[in-house]
């Protein structure tokens, strides 16, 4: 099993205009920076992007928005991005907002062969429009369907040629769920290690879910809200 590709450009081969992509990350934390850069350079547009957030104006998915490569965003929260707002208000960009927990569960379901499930989130709100309501234990729930993608693009801390992945800190977030739900899943990692170097007990994403992997040459890892405290002297 050797799933290693030369870099982001080779990794995204086959991504075509009109396709649906999943991209891991929460805010700018744990986003696949190198693949996003490669997509910006690739001649693809009309993309549907499933991602919890939409980046900021000049980083993350904001870069694809700037180049008008995204037709539709499926997200839970899309603040922090002026260009996004402009495109949405002008009608250039479709936006489907989904409760964060439902988004996560729908990605995992998509990778798990579970076509649909019931959740209480969103009952009695706009989110419920057109959705089946069903009571369990006297409580109303909505039927939510699985999400899948032509390509899932995730970012991990360490990976091996088998595609096994380990994430670091809260950069894990949606990455392991989306890794399960891609017809083709691309993983970019900070460090590509030899087979056997990762302890089988501590692997977060088993390699079976990953088709292509590479070590990103560098990571900016931009911080959105740098908050600190004073050292007591």
């Amino acid at each position, binding site marked *: 099993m050797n799933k290693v590709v030369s870099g982001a450009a080779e990794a995204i081969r086959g991504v075509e205009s009109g396709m649906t992509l999943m991209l891991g990350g929460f805010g700018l934390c744990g986003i696949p920076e190198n693949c996003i850069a490669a997509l910006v350079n690739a001649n693809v547009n009309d993309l549907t992007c499933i991602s919890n957030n939409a980046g900021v104006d000049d980083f993350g998915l904001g870069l694809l928005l700037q180049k008008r490569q995204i037709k539709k965003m499926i997200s839970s929260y899309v*603040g922090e991005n002026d260009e996004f707002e402009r495109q949405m208000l002008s009608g250039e960009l479709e936006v489907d907002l989904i409760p964060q927990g439902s988004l*996560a569960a729908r990605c995992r379901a998509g990778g798990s062969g579970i076509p649909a499930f019931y*959740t209480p989130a969103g009952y009695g709100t706009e989110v419920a429009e057109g959705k089946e309501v069903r009571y369990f234990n006297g409580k109303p729930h909505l039927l939510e369907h699985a999400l899948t993608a032509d390509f899932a693009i995730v970012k991990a801390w360490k990976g091996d040629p088998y595609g096994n992945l380990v994430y670091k*800190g809260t950069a894990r977030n949606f990455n392991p769920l989306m890794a399960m739900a891609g017809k083709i899943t691309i993983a970019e990692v900070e460090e590509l290690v030899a087979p056997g170097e990762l302890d089988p007990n501590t692997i977060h994403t088993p390699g079976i879910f990953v088709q292509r992997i590479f070590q990103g040459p560098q990571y900016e890892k931009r911080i959105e809200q740098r908050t600190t405290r004073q050292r007591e002297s």
Partner: protein
Amino acid sequence: MLDKIGIAKRIAQELQDGWYVNLGIGIPTLIANYVPPEINVEFQSENGILGMGPFPYAGEEDADLINAGKQTITSLPGASIFDSDTSFAMIRGQHIQLTVLGAMEVSDRGDIANWKIPGRMVKGMGGAMDLVASADNIIVAMMHTNKRGQSKLLKQCNLPLTGVRCVKRVVTNLAVLDIGPGGFHLRERAPGVSVEDIQAATEGRLIIEGDIPEIRTA
């Protein structure tokens, strides 16, 4: 009248030893600073961490360790990290004993609106709909009235809902109110605030029974 810190301090009194707590952005975040010293609670952030600690010292920020507000944080001994689906499994599965969040409107039957203002940029509900649909124990922390002086405690929410019949308690700059049969049950009033002041600032049905003690936050 309470300020935001006063609201946070009052809600901190609700905390019980051993509780897992999810704090929303804004006033709720402040509550972490006022946990009574004799109890242990753990804070969950829905982006995937239990056991959040204070902000890091300058120079020690880790881009891979943030909270749901995208702020750099630290973790405490006993912390754990997990994916977003496991995080909401904790929330939907009612493993969290207390959820505190802000609101734009609350109705007297416990509906809450806090994610969308028609005509304005919609940022999304994030995890709020999952939280309010699932949590057993939801406290709303907010100002009693909006910037135009209009009540935020209403008969019916005007804004698009985040969840229905879910809020259990509201703590504002003016009062502590429980949502129960018939509407908002006034429990406590802020220092210097009269029952009449609260009545005047509350559009929803307000139930006043017995003496209403003053909030103590000392």
